[in-house]
């Protein structure tokens, strides 16, 4: 296979590669599949960019990627959120090489072209040399940018339909439950993002992050080092005994639903009401005693908003594809407002234990993903190298736009892949005169 593969639509039969109970390993490693995904999922669909709280002041910006496309999420002069290409419209130089910053405008270091915060070209040195209308030479911008409760999404092609349709009832409820963890209903992502670089395909991360079957084995060392984690009921009770459930919502959104396993309020925070009294009182003040009680017992969701937003309980994570064999898993703790800072200190400490390259959990997941990726490096379609995803297929239930089953079942994996198949195969059918 050539090392460089041109983007060529409909080069693969995705209905064959993604079957109801198995998928082919070449989907992780084939560069042509990766190119298709960057188009059909990360260009034609909605992608999570960031949260409004990251850019509170006019001129604040953060550097992000939509798939592999570099962009800036910026608070523009109107106080709105703009997403613009981090690439000069003249010769393509990266405008802002840092992770984040604050500027009155963006000036390219190469020839001095200067852009307003929303990407409008403000001026060029030596304007008499240009016959074109410089109004047409602003920064590239996604076709659609929209947000829900401060979570900002972009769709480069502009053809994905509305964000609310993309989120659906499932994704909307997940973001609501995450945001409601803050007494003001607004979460704050201001504790910086840490990136973990993993030598595996990006799709292993929606899968691994939402796999309820692996805890006993992949994370055995954590269970032995810390005997009383809140995952105990989930992992120790055995098949069909845990009250937790695995859920796949319409639209490829996934959840490991631990709510019914918690045996005490605030179990997800590893503490009791007395230790975070101010936070609990603030929740009651905002939501009333009944709803606050539900929030304190249920905690935050553990869920994927397709394709790249991981609502990781009291963390937010972004799954960033770099190449077929490299992914960055970024995370930041989910901080809350309207209470004293002690609960946020606790959340930072919890985040440092759970997430990132030196954490107690994701280090083991990373090595497992890297071992998987290596095992499929030679996989070619039509040969050996299938991934079995049949677990629980016969006992899962369907109701109200969601599939759910035993926490250890691969309902989440199938939900991800079946949505993936719809996107990859239907785009192929519509973008070419199908030759198959």
């Amino acid at each position, binding site marked *: 296979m050539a090392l460089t593969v041109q983007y060529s639509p409909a080069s693969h039969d995705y209905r064959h590669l993604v079957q109801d109970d198995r998928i082919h390993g070449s989907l992780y490693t084939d560069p042509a599949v990766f190119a298709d995904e960057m188009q059909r999922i990360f260009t034609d669909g909605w992608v999570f960019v960031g949260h409004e709280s990251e850019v509170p002041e006019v001129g604040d910006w953060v550097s992000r990627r939509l798939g592999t496309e570099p962009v800036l999420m910026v608070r523009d002069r109107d106080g709105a959120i703009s997403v613009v290409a981090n690439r000069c419209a003249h010769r393509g130089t990266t405008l802002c090489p840092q992770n984040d910053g604050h500027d009155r405008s963006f000036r390219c270091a190469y020839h001095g072209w200067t852009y307003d915060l929303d990407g409008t070209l403000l001026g060029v040195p030596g304007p008499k040399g240009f016959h074109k209308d410089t109004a047409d030479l602003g920064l590239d911008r996604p076709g659609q940018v929209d947000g829900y409760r401060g979570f900002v999404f972009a769709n480069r092609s502009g053809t994905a339909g509305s964000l609310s349709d993309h989120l659906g009832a499932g994704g909307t409820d997940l973001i609501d439950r995450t945001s409601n963890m803050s007494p003001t209903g607004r979460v704050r992502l201001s504790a910086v993002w840490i990136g*973990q670089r993993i*030598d595996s395909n990006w799709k292993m991360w929606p899968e691994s992050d939402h796999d309820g079957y692996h805890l006993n084995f992949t994370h*055995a060392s954590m269970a032995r080092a810390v005997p009383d984690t809140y995952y105990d009921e989930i992992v120790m009770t055995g098949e069909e005994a845990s009250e937790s459930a695995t859920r796949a919502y319409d639209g490829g959104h996934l959840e490991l639903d631990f709510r019914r396993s918690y045996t005490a309020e605030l179990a997800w925070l590893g503490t009791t009401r007395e230790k975070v009294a101010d936070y609990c009182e603030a929740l009651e003040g905002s939501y009333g005693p009944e709803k606050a009680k539900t929030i304190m017992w249920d905690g935050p969701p553990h869920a994927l908003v397709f394709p790249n937003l991981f609502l990781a309980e009291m963390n937010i994570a972004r799954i960033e594809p770099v190449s077929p064999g490299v992914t960055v898993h970024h995370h930041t703790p989910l901080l809350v407002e309207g209470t004293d800072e002690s609960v946020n200190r606790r959340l*930072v400490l919890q985040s440092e234990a759970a997430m990132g390259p030196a954490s107690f959990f994701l280090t083991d997941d*990373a*090595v497992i993903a890297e*071992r998987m990726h*290596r095992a499929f490096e030679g996989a070619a379609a039509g040969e050996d190298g299938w991934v079995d995803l049949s677990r629980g297929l016969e006992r899962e239930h369907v109701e109200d736009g969601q599939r759910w089953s035993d926490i250890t079942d691969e309902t989440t994996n199938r939900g991800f892949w079946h949505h993936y198949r719809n996107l990859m195969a239907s785009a192929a059918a519509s973008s070419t005169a199908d030759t198959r």
Partner: protein
Amino acid sequence: MAPEATESESIASGTVGSGVRDAVDELTRRDIKAFVYLEARLADESRYDEWEALVTDDMHYWVPFGPGDYEPGTRVSYINDNRARLGTRIRQLATGVHHAQDPPSSMRRVVSNIEILSAEGDEFEVGSNFVLYEHAVQATGHLRLWAGRTTHRLRRTSDGLRMAAKKVELVNSTSPLPNLPFII
């Protein structure tokens, strides 16, 4: 020439004339240097029981994001271990089923530019630079390169020098990092 040779042989100690040079005797300087090398070698060889015996009960182990000029806990760090969490980290490494270090990485680090930055009572702040080569044998087999600055806070105790704090500022800490499950 003898005094200069002795000085360069042991450890540069802060800015010349800062007073630190005079405050730390030659024997202590040698002990500090030997401690820093021992700590590095035990970490290289994943000898965690012996490594843990070097730390005090109030040990703080910190790998900040960006320069370590903020109060740990006010924003997220790679590692921000108090003594209890450091104990958990070492227990996890000792379980034999911590896949991220099963088998342990083969590692060698070169420690240099050791300076005693301050001396106060029984405590010494010691700065050094390091380059670490890690063979990540668990999955990829890649040779990974780590580099940064270490700041130790060492305390003289009845058992000899012990480590009360270790801060490791990686030169590339603001870019995504691969697995860091060992003691750096």
